[in-house]
């Protein structure tokens, strides 16, 4: 009986050793010698595997000031006026964001330069003065700025392969050359620029234009994400295009991280707003007066990076 038990144990252990030794060889599944694989896929089971993309982490929201200079080719990008001014706030915990447009004709104090249209801050003192002006206006600390030009915007949209833009009302404007009927349009860089520049097609002029510029950013985000998740390797090409077409205080590694973060912010979680304002006259100039109610929005955005509601 005892001998049988020992023999049994030896057999079990020995068998296990053999089994492990066999399974340890990754080299030879070796089908039976008389068989050949016909490679007929009877069962095809595509499996989407795990995904993970690193994102910026932080306890407080991140704020980027995005400027569109009206510099033409040959002009200094940061020495002309800013046609488009947007604060992008990103809540790094919730991965929600808000694009807050400030109309370029907003009549605001410019530090050291009296009161003027906000777009003059760029020509008066470059992007850093625009940053200071926006910070003084909103109380929001701007972490980084990025500025582009007409050509820069065109190039970046083209590098994405165009964007799909929803046009909500007729846009037929000889100044910007925008010529769009309502509906969704696939726009190349030139068309996107025309869409972003048009203010004459709207009763509320600069306010609607600012909102359209924010919408264009969201459309670009959608396209960027589609490109990335379809084929992640396109990220590097997009980054290069952005880097070559902006001037920014962002260091390249931060831009890279920000781009990875942007892959994870759903466009539906981004609120696109323009500061509440009315148009009016200041002397002979047509300007935009920001409504005092904007202060509550600034405070909310400063606290959370986002503004709820529309």
């Amino acid at each position, binding site marked *: 009986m005892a001998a049988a038990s020992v023999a049994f144990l030896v057999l079990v252990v020995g068998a296990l050793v053999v089994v492990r030794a066999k399974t340890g060889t990754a080299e030879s599944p070796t089908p039976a010698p008389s068989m*050949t694989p016909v490679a007929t896929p009877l069962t095809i089971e595509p499996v989407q595997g795990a995904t993970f993309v690193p994102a910026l982490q932080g306890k407080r929201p991140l704020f980027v000031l995005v400027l569109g200079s009206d510099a033409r080719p040959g002009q200094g990008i940061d020495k002309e006026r800013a046609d488009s001014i947007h604060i992008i706030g990103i809540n790094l915990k919730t991965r929600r964001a808000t694009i807050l447009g400030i109309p370029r004709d907003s009549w605001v104090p410019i530090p050291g330069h009296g009161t003027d249209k906000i777009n003059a801050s760029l020509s008066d003192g470059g992007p850093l003065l625009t940053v200071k002006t926006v910070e003084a206006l909103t109380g929001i600390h701007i972490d980084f700025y990025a500025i582009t030009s007409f050509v820069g915007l065109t190039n970046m949209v083209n590098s994405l392969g165009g964007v799909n833009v929803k046009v909500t009302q007729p846009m037929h404007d000889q100044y910007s050359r925008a010529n769009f009927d309502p509906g969704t349009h696939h726009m190349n860089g030139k068309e996107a620029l025309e869409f972003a520049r048009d203010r004459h097609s709207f009763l509320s002029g600069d306010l609607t234009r600012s909102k359209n510029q924010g919408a264009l950013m969201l459309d670009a985000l959608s396209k960027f994400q589609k490109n990335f998740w379809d084929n992640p390797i396109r990220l590097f090409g997009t980054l290069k295009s952005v880097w070559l077409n902006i001037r920014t205080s962002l260091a*390249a590694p931060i831009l890279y991280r920000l781009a990875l973060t942007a892959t994870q912010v759903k466009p539906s979680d981004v609120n696109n707003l323009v500061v509440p304002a009315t148009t009016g006259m200041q002397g002979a100039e047509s300007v935009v007066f920001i409504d005092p109610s904007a202060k509550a929005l600034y405070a909310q955005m400063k606290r959370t990076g986002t503004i709820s509601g529309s």
Partner: protein
Amino acid sequence: MRRRRPWWAIVIAVVLIAAIAVLALILSGNRQVLPFEPPKRVPFTFKLGNTSTVSLKLKSPSVGDVPLSVQKTLSDMYDGLFLDPHAWSTAPPSDVYDHFTEAAKPAAQQDGTSLGLGSLTGTIKTLKVDSSNLDVRVLVDPAGHPTSAMGLVQFVATAQTKTGSTIRITRKAQYLLENVNGTWLVAGFPKTTTTVDRIVMSPVPTGGSGGSGSQSGSGS
């Protein structure tokens, strides 16, 4: 009057306890304490295909041995995910996660099986690599430093399952790698697609040319 236990009964008890301990160690998969030398395997190495750079400055700089470092990291990772027998039976060995950055490691551990054999884990008896290819693209910052790399992987293996089927596993994936203290580690895995197809084994007709495409013996 109580009878003393015979000496051989004590020996059997001791042997029994020792055997159970050995079995437990074997079944736990702890290679450190296996009572035998694990079989030697040739470590897997990806075939390095195209390498390219994307420089944030117009001039294209040299990226040195970054592609080779990426090849080493991903090869070692795949060795653990697919070729280590532990990955066939239970889960990839824990050291496979050493190839991930600290930020990516928790996600990798959580998705450990789907990064590797996924639902096939536990069903594989043996696995052999048929082909592999790794393309590497390196992002170079304006100062000329490689910032990040993307590894595009194609990996095809044939496996025998415990039920006797032969399957082909085709993995296509893209990995984001970053330099952490001189080592290129996996920082992200944005895209992973695995296709499993069953291979029907057909008898080779004696003297025949084969390749008739016979589908006899359909895989169940």
